[in-house]
């Protein structure tokens, strides 16, 4: 594993251990609802289902269609805030 992915794994471990990952997920969830992201994606999902047909669509279809759009639609402010929080958390637990 490269140094980068090693670091990523270590950070991820720390986040999970301290329960911070769950907390951050909650914050993210709330923010994405507030800014309307959830509704936008929900509408997109419905479109995909309509296109593929309710009986034939699989979760894979949805994941392939929706993931890129979902990633692109996250507002910069939300990304910034989450990044800040992660930084703050790491600064606090600097014994990594």
């Amino acid at each position, binding site marked *: *594993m490269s140094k980068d*992915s090693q670091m*990523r*794994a270590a950070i*991820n*471990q*720390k986040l*999970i*251990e*301290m*329960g911070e990952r*769950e*907390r951050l997920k*909650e*914050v993210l969830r*709330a*923010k994405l*609802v*507030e800014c309307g992201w959830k509704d936008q994606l929900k509408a997109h999902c419905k479109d995909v289902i309509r296109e593929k047909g309710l*009986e034939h*669509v*699989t*979760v*894979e279809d949805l994941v392939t269609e929706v993931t890129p759009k979902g990633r692109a639609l996250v507002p910069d402010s939300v990304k910034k805030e989450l990044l800040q929080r992660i930084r703050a958390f790491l600064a606090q637990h600097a014994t990594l």
Partner: protein
Amino acid sequence: MSPAGCSHVNGYKVDNWKQNLRVIYQCFVWSGTAETRRRKAKSCICHMCGAHLNRLHSCLYCVFFGCFTKKHIHEHAKNKRHNLAIDLLYGGIYCFVCQDYIYDKDMEQIAKEEQRKAWKLQGTAFLASHLTFFVSTGIGEKYTTWEPTKRELELLRHNPKRRKITTNCTIGLRGLINLGNTCFMNCIVQALTHTPLLRDFFLSDRHKCEMQSNSCLVCEMSQLFQEFYSGHRSPHIPFRLLHLVWTHARHLAGYEQQDAHEFLIAALDVLHRHYDNGKKANNPNHCNCIIDQIFTGGLQSDVTCQVCHGVSTTIDPFWDISLDLPGSSTPFWPLSPGGDGSTVNGESHLSGSTTLTDCLRRFTRPEHLGSSAKIKCGGCHSYQESTKQLTMKKLPIVACFHLKRFEHSAKLRRKITTYVSFPLELDMTPFMASSKESRMNGQYQQTVDVLNNDNKYSLFAVVNHQGTLESGHYTSFIRQHKDQWFKCDDAIITKASIKDVLDSEGYLLFYHKQFLEYE
């Protein structure tokens, strides 16, 4: 992808499968305890490539973790003929034969229970960032749909009577017996019991009393709401409330007629104090009681030195705004109609009568403090003449306007009966500190931003005084539902028209913000 699940799970549902599945959920999907979290952190990586991203799945038949995106788990499924895997992010069960996520009723049940358990364990650690106004007073709880507890189910079964709220029903309306010149208290009670946020707070049982004695006013308020919404049509006798008021606000005790405005402030003060049973005495500026959340606003006072133009700003909390009226001994410069503010609020100018916005404009005008009232200027380091201006820094959710009709100056005591017209909908934008700043920066023509709904208010209660300073009577108008108004005259409640309300003299005006936001 049928909701009835797939037949391939039957091969899994043998022996102690339920317990095994639970363990997987508890340890690797929704880790509630610190121990499981540690284990999850260490072991949840792909057995083939070591990555922890890529939609990690766990095989249900053996201990194998693999990436979904990189198809590592697919390889494992093919090689070992282990057809079921669980998504470690969301707990979904994937069947490699059906090539899709399947929904088996038994497994869904287990998943739901384990998720709830994990949430409960983490519950107290969360401070839900999407707090609503009412949850902010309790411990942080994860948002879930409401399901009744055992106790609640019991209560619901023992009390089978249900009340349907229709648009025409009069639930929440109840007369109040006059216990001897207590109309001043009655009309404030009517206004408070019809303040939507306050009503919601008390009806959802949000007050957990910590006072030992029976003298908590917040508890009594809670009782009062129960009485008002009980559906009883006979007038309520508020003797306990009166007694508590006499105990906690001695200056209002006695059978003489008191001032409704004074009662309002005293009541809010006692409620605010009793809220935490005195705990907040250590930190009065950071109170988060329901009274502060609803009624407290911030008034900004700017003192500008006339020599160096340095501005000294202070912000004070307020529960109400007391407005001087024309005809009082303090001069009220008549302002021409149609100026900034009154066109926004669409008040009627009946042959040059004063409007509420006129009074507000006067309240927020820059006032020259004169040579006899020089203020020490921090910039000039000497006493200079200055101007003072008041503006709204932070608007409360419920704004109460007090028209100063009772004059108690050295020379005379009288009641000012000048008619002041007030609107049903009020926009406070022109009186905000931020508006003043943009005016000062040269943006004179303040185009009304119709999309900014933050400062829009609706009238919901009016308290009126009839008679003279020596002997008078208080009544109130309150709004029920969107456009239905009722007149509350002690024990007698009658339907009123909007015209009745707007034509009345007006002493205390209660406005509620039209749009509420999450914090």
